[in-house]
């Protein structure tokens, strides 16, 4: 794993984080639920907690889908290419490219590998890692690896991801420390 320069992290008095969605996106509960599951994966291994709120400007983490130039100097580029980006702590800004074909359920079958469809939860888990202070990893199976092929679902934290986040925030007392699923187990749950 890697960290951002200076190892920024959420301060001690801000470990119970809130997140909210840009109301202009009018996301469905199903889509919001995908993010809830992604946050839960990180909460399971650290002392951090994540609570959804409706007050978008006041929440610690703000999530929005945007297209092209959306005002942060990092314009999106249409279908595929860059899918999303997120800022290091304590910014909390999480932006996704609304030009992608986001798939919100894992039940897609092998055809996905031949299309431009992207698994939303896979990208959400990765970007939350950035929001919490993790940079990119060279471990191809890790969540924090920079690329994700269309047709791939990768949502389980690996040992590399867990080591990184626990270095920043410590261990969830309820985390049993068991090894994350093996590569073979995770691959079997991939689309296609």
């Amino acid at each position, binding site marked *: 794993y890697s960290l951002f320069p200076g190892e920024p992290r959420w301060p001690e008095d801000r470990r119970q984080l809130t997140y909210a969605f840009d109301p202009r996106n009018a996301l469905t509960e199903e889509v919001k639920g995908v993010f809830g599951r992604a946050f839960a994966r990180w909460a399971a291994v650290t002392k951090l907690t994540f609570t959804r709120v409706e007050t978008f400007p006041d929440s610690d983490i703000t999530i929005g889908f945007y297209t092209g130039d959306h005002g942060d100097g990092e314009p*999106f580029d*249409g279908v595929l290419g860059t*899918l999303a980006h997120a800022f290091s702590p304590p910014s909390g800004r999480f932006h996704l490219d609304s030009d*992608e074909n986001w798939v*919100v359920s894992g*039940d897609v079958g092998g055809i996905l590998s031949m299309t*431009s469809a992207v698994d939303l939860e896979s990208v959400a888990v990765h970007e939350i890692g*950035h929001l919490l202070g993790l940079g990119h990893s*060279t471990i191809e199976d890790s969540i924090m690896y*920079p690329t994700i092929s269309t047709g791939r679902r990768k949502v389980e934290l690996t040992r590399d991801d867990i080591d990184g986040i626990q270095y920043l925030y410590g261990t969830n007392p309820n985390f049993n420390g068991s090894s994350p699923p093996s590569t073979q187990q995770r691959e079997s749950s991939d689309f296609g």
Partner: protein
Amino acid sequence: EFFFPNVTGIPPSRLLNTTRNLWDAFRNFTGCRPGVDGLYKLKQYFQRFGYIPENFSGNFTDDFDDILRHAIEMYQRNFRLNVSGELDELTVRHLVIPRCGNPDIVNGSSAMHGGKKYEVNFAGRRGQRFHALKR
């Protein structure tokens, strides 16, 4: 409009129009070496993800110069590819995969490769001085 419960819900016409992306053009650079034109977009790609410093002051050219070669080497190192400084097939195949928009190298320092830090030093003028330093 852009959420689909599963892939079968995506209109075929939309899929046909979106199976290729901007970076697919990089496939044309497979195997190219110094002397091949058309590379400035690839330099922009590498700069976007930190492999060429943001403060590079000149305009990118189509030259396969040291700036590009060192960016390719750093990229290959980060993605655990064969470090050749050349645009071999596997490297180009990696380049076109959709990815996170966050840079791999921040402020000239990459911590991606096995915890070892690599620092990029760049004089600011094209071709003058550009090297990667392993710490």
